């Protein structure tokens, strides 16, 4: 495990369970020679894996470029919340990135811009827009679309040479399906300061349903619904979910029922009033040509939303109003 002598600025937590191939891609996307504008000394990656029949190979991890630390845990609870909290204990960085689903690989600018977001303000909640690989949400893909299909496509585009090629075959994920100028319901890769994670006592261990249920949604809102927090969106970057038989992204017969249970649990913790994070975000970063269509889509949907809310005489960013944050644009 990492020594605490020379702490990096950032710690990135990656939670893994039974997704060896996908998680290795995610870890490759966190390597120093893939991520731009960061040095190895800027960050560490804490990989916490709950034991399964298909675990990561520690030797393979040790060959990655960067400071990777792998912890294999025995946990039969089916939820990642305990793994998250154990990882948070190990983090030495001041700014913590959380990838609660280890199947989400990143574009090459994420860590550099996250570092900039923290330089801008220690209160930055830095969110990386989420995409599903493939031309539609993965739960809506036909049976012919499989993990093998996806991995073959990834190999064919040589994504490690230019990670922005991931935008070529992607679809906004359901957690931010209207684009990043809409309130974020969920974000599969975000960064907040150690102090802000401590303020909410880490990851809520009451979320014990399969895969943690809606823990990721709860965590984002718990962090973001705070007047100190400055929401930042890395508009030109993305986290890309790979098919791996996940709880909500696999088209199973009981998916709807399962999601309803998750939603009920979530609402029970928010007095029946859970909402996406209705905070006006700051954008930060460069916009590569490959991400322009997504920016255009996001801005169109933002205009549609604005028109609708004006008609209903409702505020654009209700949480900013409730938190009495000075109106930003």
């Amino acid at each position: 495990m990492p020594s605490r002598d020379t702490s990096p600025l950032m710690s990135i937590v990656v939670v893994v369970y039974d997704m060896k191939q996908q998680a290795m891609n995610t870890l490759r996307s966190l390597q120093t020679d893939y991520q731009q504008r960061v040095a190895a000394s800027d960050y560490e990656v804490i990989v916490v894996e709950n034991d399964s029949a298909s675990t990561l190979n520690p030797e393979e991890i040790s060959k990655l470029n960067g400071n990777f630390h792998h912890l294999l845990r025995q946990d039969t609870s089916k939820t990642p919340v305990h793994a998250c909290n154990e990882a948070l204990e190990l983090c030495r960085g001041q700014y913590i990135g959380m990838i609660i689903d280890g199947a989400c690989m990143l574009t090459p600018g994420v860590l550099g811009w996250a570092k900039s977001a923290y330089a801008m303000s220690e209160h930055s909640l830095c969110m990386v827009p989420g995409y599903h690989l493939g031309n539609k949400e993965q739960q809506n893909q036909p049976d012919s679309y499989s993990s093998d299909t996806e991995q073959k496509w990834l190999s064919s585009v040589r994504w490690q040479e230019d990670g922005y090629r991931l935008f070529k075959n992607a679809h906004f994920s359901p957690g931010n399906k209207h684009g990043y100028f809409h309130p974020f319901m969920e974000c599969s890769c975000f960064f907040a300061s150690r102090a802000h994670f401590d303020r909410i006592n880490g990851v809520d261990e009451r979320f014990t349903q399969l895969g943690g249920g809606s823990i990721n949604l709860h965590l984002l809102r718990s962090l973001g619904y705070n007047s100190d927090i400055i929401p930042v969106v890395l508009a030109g970057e993305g986290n890309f979910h790979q098919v791996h038989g996940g709880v909500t992204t696999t088209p199973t017969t009981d998916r709807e029922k399962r999601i309803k249970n998750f939603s009920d649990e979530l609402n029970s913790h928010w007095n029946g009033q859970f909402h996406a994070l209705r905070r006006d975000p700051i954008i930060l970063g460069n916009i590569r040509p490959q991400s322009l269509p997504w920016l255009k889509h996001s801005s169109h949907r933002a205009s549609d939303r604005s028109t609708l809310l004006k008609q209903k005489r409702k505020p654009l960013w209700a949480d900013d109003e409730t938190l009495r944050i000075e109106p930003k644009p």
Partner: protein
Amino acid sequence: MINKIKQLLSSPVQNTTPTNTPPSQTGKLPFSPEATKSFSSSLPTLDNPSESRDKLKLSIVLIVFDMPAQAYKTLHSLSVQYQRGVSESDYEVIVIENRSSNNLQESKVSSIGKNFKYFLRDETEPTPVHAANFGIQEARGEFVTLMIDGARMLTPGVVQYLLAAYRVSKHAIVAVPGYHLGHKLQQKAMLEGYNKEEEQTLLDSIKWPNDGYRLFEVSCLSGTSAGGFFRPFGESNCLGAPRQLLLELGGLDKRFNETGGGQANLDLYKRLVEHSDSVLFCLPGEGSFHQFHGGVTTGQKGEIREEAMRAHFAQYATIRGGAYKPPQKRPIYLGPIPDGAMKFLSKSAQQAETTHAQP
């Protein structure tokens, strides 16, 4: 070193004579700026953020000449009553006015805020470059924002995000996109009767200054930003840079002694952005909005404007050896996108998508 640079900034002007201009082959004026539709393939580099957080960070230098009505609006848009999320101790505003028959009142400027300073200068040349260089010398902030045309009012987040950019990089060059009030460029709109009265009606229609972001509703992108946010800008009329770099570059080039400074601002923008250390930022959710005031390039008709533009282009070519070409450095985008700016963001993405060369 600093004294030497100051001396350089204040030394007498050397007049330049434009070379003979070639005849136009394309209907464009000779030495018209070249169109640049794409950024370079190099990614933005990032250095360390600015370290000291306790000193005065930002000085805004505003140049005024013969435009009190417009300048007072611009000054209000720079006040803490209008700018959001900042206090008087965060920045200073240095107003440099070249004397005319129509000056601002010092007491009125000072009453806007404790952070406002006013200087009235006697200028013998028709250019703002000496006034601007004087303002840069007077600036106490580590970071200076030059507004060479006092007729450009701002959106309410400009000061906050100028400061934010500087926190991200101590080598930040910040370009605030430029707009013209009105639905057409003012040099065209005036031919159809656009004037100060019509402009005031527009401002009244959005109840300015109650919500400064509503300026987007009654404006269009100005000529040097017309390609949108995802193509290189030609200049910025609200241009932030580290004071030390401005001093090292000698500020605005004193040879730009044409009326209004000719292409002095474009030239400075290019030199700042192309400096090897510079990190370019664009604030796509903010803007500087030009008010109609009979300016050299935005408020003159037909032959008078064309003659001025011809002289500006020729002078640039004389000084730099060819037509102006916008810098192609890729910017970092920063800040929130207000509702009104979404249409400009969307259009910018559309424009860039259609022509952008893949890297």
